[in-house]
């Protein structure tokens, strides 16, 4: 394995821009204009930052939608302070209902159930497809993967740019749908048919067109990532020397490549249902509001669910794997010792990737698809938890015996571990058909997947932002406000989601704009299994916790922009890291490396006995000249 360096062909054939700045000076110093530099850039780092900023904006917007919904849940049909009037001027009285006092004057506007539904559908869509995936996969992948493997850029830079533009356009289509008559899609982020084809709004058609654009974007991205990782690894960067973050992105790219197209197929079919009035997902004799429709029938609502969840479940691993990759990098760096079980991590990520394709129907135990099928998917679901647990266990064991350095990225990475653990373990009852029948579609499941994605994945992403910010800007983000951000986020995340487990176990159903008032003991006294007052009260507490969580993000937003120009200046390798993304100039120029990196060892050579420094970079030659860690 150690001798593989010689087997590689020369890194660059023909012209070699990195070896001679002088020969190619006319190319490198040509200063492109604003549009070319920031909007139509083909540089993977600029595209990564574009993705990152747009995705963060979408996440903030999706969070705002959720705050509106939490208000409606806690105070159904009560006037919304501040926001109500704004919503009314945008969506009109149909969607934002006027609230009158005793004398009949309008004192404010409340969310209508229809508006709640559309916010719910769009919150999920935006958070998953426009927020977390673009940030975790596209932004971090674009910025970090080529640097980590020692490549000058992605294999297809122009396709990379097209990918971002398709994503942006898809986002615009989604946003525009809020303003059309009838409003945005209202059938949930899962868009189950026939509901999605019977709600009288064109928002669903917009949703589908938006999705086709987003799927195109992720397809182009996935092809690019896989090709880059296979083709552009620097000499000596063998597969088992790849930092695990690259492996995580590699598996993620394969999942996106193969799982998204069936949803695209489903999207085309549903678009036909909505626009050409076919009946792919509409059963024979479908009645809407008591009236049998004109549709020809013969379709299968279950078909949509199969096609949707064939993407939907692998998508969960698209959301989590890149964040896990970031956490591994941050943990290795801050424990100052090699990661525990590197090979187990690699094979586990491959196992997760493969198994994620055969667990989808565990979302469908309630559909009556049959006990035999349910048993199969229950078995695969239990099996996939094995590699997931191996990954998490490796993370925990990596902490053992390390001299842990605490800083903001490390805090977020450490926060990820128990939060993802809670999210994962609470998923087990949902993977077993018998218990899922009770818990399905309750707040329990909302709490479960939010623990995986919100304090799980998003904490991983925050760790990544604080960790690679110095590489992008040459400055560190403020440590004090970073810690404030972490501790407040940790506390309020838990205050938001922990009560939902209790609500769900008590039987509170999701997707109710009134938060279950009609099923409460107060509304129907004496009936069995109503929601007790203590459970209903939690709605109010969750609202305040969610608002506090929003406020807790303000230090982060200010810190992010303030630190670009005012943060503490640092050298090229401020964390004393081993991977080659830290062996480039800061910020890396177009083409990345000053000299061609030659990789001579594995990714996590920390505290090697006998070495003076406690880290040994993967590429030795560059390290000798360039390791100017501010430490």
């Amino acid at each position: 394995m150690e001798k593989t360096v010689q087997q590689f062909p020369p890194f660059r054939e023909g012209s070699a821009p990195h070896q001679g700045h002088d020969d190619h000076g006319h190319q490198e110093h040509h200063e492109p204009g604003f549009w070319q530099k920031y909007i139509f850039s083909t540089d993977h780092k600029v595209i990564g930052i574009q993705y990152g900023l747009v995705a963060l904006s979408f996440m903030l917007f999706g969070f705002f939608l959720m705050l509106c919904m939490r208000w409606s849940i806690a105070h159904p049909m009560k006037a919304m302070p501040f926001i109500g009037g704004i919503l009314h001027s945008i969506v009109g009285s149909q969607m934002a209902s006027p609230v009158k006092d005793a004398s009949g004057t309008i004192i404010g506007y409340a969310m209508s159930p229809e508006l709640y539904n559309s916010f719910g559908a769009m919150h999920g869509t935006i958070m998953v497809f426009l927020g977390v995936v673009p940030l975790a996969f596209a932004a971090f992948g674009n910025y970090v993967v080529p640097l980590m493997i020692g490549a000058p850029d992605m294999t297809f830079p122009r396709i990379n740019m097209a990918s971002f533009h398709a994503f942006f356009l898809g986002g615009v289509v989604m946003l525009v749908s809020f303003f059309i008559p009838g409003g945005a899609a209202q059938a949930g982020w899962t868009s189950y048919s026939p509901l999605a084809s019977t709600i009288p709004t064109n928002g669903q058609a917009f949703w589908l067109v938006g999705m086709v654009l987003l799927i195109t974007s992720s397809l182009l991205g996935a092809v690019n990532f896989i090709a880059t990782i296979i083709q552009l690894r620097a000499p000596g960067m063998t597969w088992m020397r790849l930092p695990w973050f690259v492996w995580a992105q590699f598996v993620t790219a394969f999942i996106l490549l193969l799982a998204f197209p069936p949803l695209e197929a489903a999207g085309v079919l549903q678009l036909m249902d909505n626009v050409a009035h076919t009946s792919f997902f509409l059963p024979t004799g479908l009645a809407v509001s008591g009236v049998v429709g004109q549709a020809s029938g013969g379709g299968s609502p279950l078909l949509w669910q199969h096609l949707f969840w064939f993407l939907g479940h692998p998508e969960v691993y698209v959301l989590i794997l890149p964040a896990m990759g970031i956490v591994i990098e941050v943990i290795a760096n801050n424990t100052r010792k090699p990661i525990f079980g590197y090979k187990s991590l690699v094979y586990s990520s491959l196992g997760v990737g493969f198994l994620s394709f055969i667990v989808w129907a565990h979302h469908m135990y309630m559909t009556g698809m049959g006990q035999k099928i349910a048993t199969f998917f229950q078995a695969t679901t239990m099996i996939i938890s094995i590699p997931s647990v191996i990954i998490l266990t490796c993370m925990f064991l990596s902490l053992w015996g390390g001299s842990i350095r605490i800083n903001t990225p490390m805090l977020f990475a450490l926060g990820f571990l128990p939060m993802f653990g809670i999210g994962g373990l609470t998923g087990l009852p949902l993977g077993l058909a018998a218990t899922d029948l009770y818990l399905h579609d309750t707040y329990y499941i909302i709490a479960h997947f939010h623990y995986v994605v919100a304090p799980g994945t998003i904490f991983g992403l925050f760790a990544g932002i604080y960790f690679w910010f110095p590489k992008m800007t040459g400055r560190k983000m403020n440590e004090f406000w970073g810690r404030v951000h972490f501790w407040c986020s940790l506390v309020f995340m838990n205050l938001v989601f922990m009560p939902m487990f209790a609500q769900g176990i008590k039987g509170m159903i999701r997707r109710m704009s009134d938060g279950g008032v009609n099923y409460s003991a107060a509304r129907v006294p004496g009936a069995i299994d109503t929601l007790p007052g203590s459970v209903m009260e939690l709605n109010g507490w969750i609202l305040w916790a969610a608002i506090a969580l929003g406020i807790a993000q303000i230090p982060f937003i200010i810190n992010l922009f303030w630190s670009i120009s005012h943060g503490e200046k640092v050298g090229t390798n401020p964390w004393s890291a081993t991977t080659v993304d830290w062996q480039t100039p800061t910020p890396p120029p177009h083409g990345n490396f000053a000299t061609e990196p030659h990789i001579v060892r594995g990714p996590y050579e920390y505290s090697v006995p006998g070495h003076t420094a406690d880290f040994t970079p993967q590429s030795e030659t560059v390290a000798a000249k360039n390791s100017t860690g501010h430490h």
Partner: protein
Amino acid sequence: MEIPYTVHKRADTGLYNAKLGIWLFLASEVMLFGGLFSAYILLRVGAGEGTWPHGWLDVRLGTINTILLALSAITTLLAWAALKVKEFGKFKFFHACTMLLALTFLGIKSYEYYDKFHHYEIQLNNGTIADGHFVEQSADFDLAKKTGTFTIHGHIVERHAELMDMRSDEAKKAKHEEHVIAAADIKHMENYSPRHNTFTAIYFTMSGLHALHILGGTLVIFYLWGPGSRMWKTDPERFTNRIEVSGLFWHFVDLVWVFLFPVLYLT
């Protein structure tokens, strides 16, 4: 800045970038059409007894189209082979044939669509069903006002099930002639558009998506054949790679048709 392995292959993978890229893209295309074929299977298996139509499509036209695409696969291969032996003129000729074959395919496909959109199933008030192609309609034809007449060339059947198997002996024996139908007699009429039933829906969707792929492939080949072929003078090796990569896509699109033809026309 130059990306390595855009033209020459990397030794340990044996591929140049675009070739790997197109294979990955094709893998996702397999999943796209795989999703649609799965949908076809599920819908067909789930269809009630006697509700899935047979023999609604013209096998002769389908066969001709299959032959056209098979020939275009050969010319695509020959075009690439011609570049490999540095015969640019032959390349031009073979890819001109490819595009001609592709356009003929699309022409025949359009005719088939046109034929289906002019094919009407008319449920009459007396319980029988008139089924056939549109011939003409009177100037005052209005279904809502129940005025005028609608003329089709076809036949009248007693039961809807009789329309479902056009390969049966009864269907073959049926006499097709012109029927003039008064609007007042019509209960419901509908052409064989995608909404007509699940079969037409999946037929139009799958063959339509395939036709879009044909169109896209033709546009790419046209670009490489026309303005894009200037690269032959500056970077012949890279140009040959481009022809290979676009050819791989073309072969895939042909392959999809090889599955579509039996599934839609022959069963």
